[in-house]
């Protein structure tokens, strides 16, 4: 399953908290240099427009987080109680 589809399975009630925590993971990652520049620019585009906690924004932040910190991303989803998402993300690893 693609990350876009996985992101769609995150309940809207959790978009804000998931987005906030994923951004923290991305910004504080020691693997930040692995971020593809195109993806970084897309995230900046959504950030400027306050859309990182929307379905499209969340998809991109999730994508970045999975590239930089896959384990921490899975742990976060577990922490948020999203067991289905955890399974889906593990399948992409």
């Amino acid at each position, binding site marked *: 399953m693609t990350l876009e589809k996985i992101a769609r399975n995150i309940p809207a009630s959790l978009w804000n908290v998931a987005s906030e925590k994923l951004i923290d993971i991305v910004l504080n990652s020691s693997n930040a240099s692995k971020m593809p520049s195109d993806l970084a620019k897309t995230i900046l585009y959504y*950030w400027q427009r306050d859309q990182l906690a929307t379905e499209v924004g969340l998809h991109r932040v999730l994508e970045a987080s999975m590239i930089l910190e896959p384990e921490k991303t899975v742990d976060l989803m577990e922490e948020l109680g999203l067991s289905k998402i955890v399974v889906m993300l593990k399948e992409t690893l």
Partner: protein
Amino acid sequence: MVEFGIEFVPRDLYWKTTFYAIQAEKIGFDNLWITDHFNNRNVYVSLAIASAYTERIKFGPGVTNPYLVHPVVTAQAVATLNEIAPGRVVCGLGVGDRTTLQMVNIKMRKPLSTIRESVHIIREITSRRTLEMQGTIFKVSGAKLNFKIANPIPIFIGAQGPKMLALAAEIGDGVLINASHPKDVENAMTFIRQGVERAGKNLDDLDISAYTSFSMASSYEKAFKAVVPVVAYIVAGSPEMILERHGISVEFASKIRDAIVHGRWKEAFSSVDNNMVEAFSICGAPKICVEKIGKLMKVGVNQVVAGSPIGPNMRKSINMIATEVFPHFKKRVGEKRT
């Protein structure tokens, strides 16, 4: 009217600096300054991308120096930025960081003449006049930009010593006082008044900014840890008179400088104590930072620049400024309070 600026050192990846620049604009910062050191990412590339993702915040190099970058190139760079973001560009100019210049064997020769001539060059070139100049430092024969520039670009001069402060006030549109302590800023105001008087200007027409080293966190200890490297650089580069004002031994400062130049970071940073941090930064939990900012405003500044590091966790600290600092000084995002 009080403004707030924020300074980033483009040591981080470009997208992180840009992310924080967007955040700074969202929470209500008025000015974005990006430092210019040859060993970090390029200041103008960093500013260009930040400008593309912001709409309101004013921005510029904070500061560039004419020893490494010829003023005609600075004029060209800020004029180009002004094309991307008309009316939002400011140009911060100063003599630079002594320690960094030392790494490339450049001496800070005749700083006053260098700044005076540089300001003249940048102003003339960005006004699109043809420049003929036989200065003591720079000689320019018929230099002119080949493209139009819509508006004048304000020039802010970074200054710390008495003569540079007076010169900055005399010829600059703004002064960036390189200080975090109210005592230093109050002292600087004496020389700024002299410069303003010399130029026959009104003090109210001059933008006076305290360019601080700022580190805010939930506790002093966390904020202290983040600010130590910056304070080490400041101690290493500060004039004797300022070190003495804060009871810091000149010899000790020289040892820190030597450690930095030779990459002995642990030695340099472990030499920084509470007194140095108090003298050269705004550091601590929000309450302490608010008090110190209030004191700076009382002595006459109309912009406080929160310079790097800003905090141990950049995103959190910027948000903390929004919730814990701005409400004391600003009405709403984009509005100012006296």
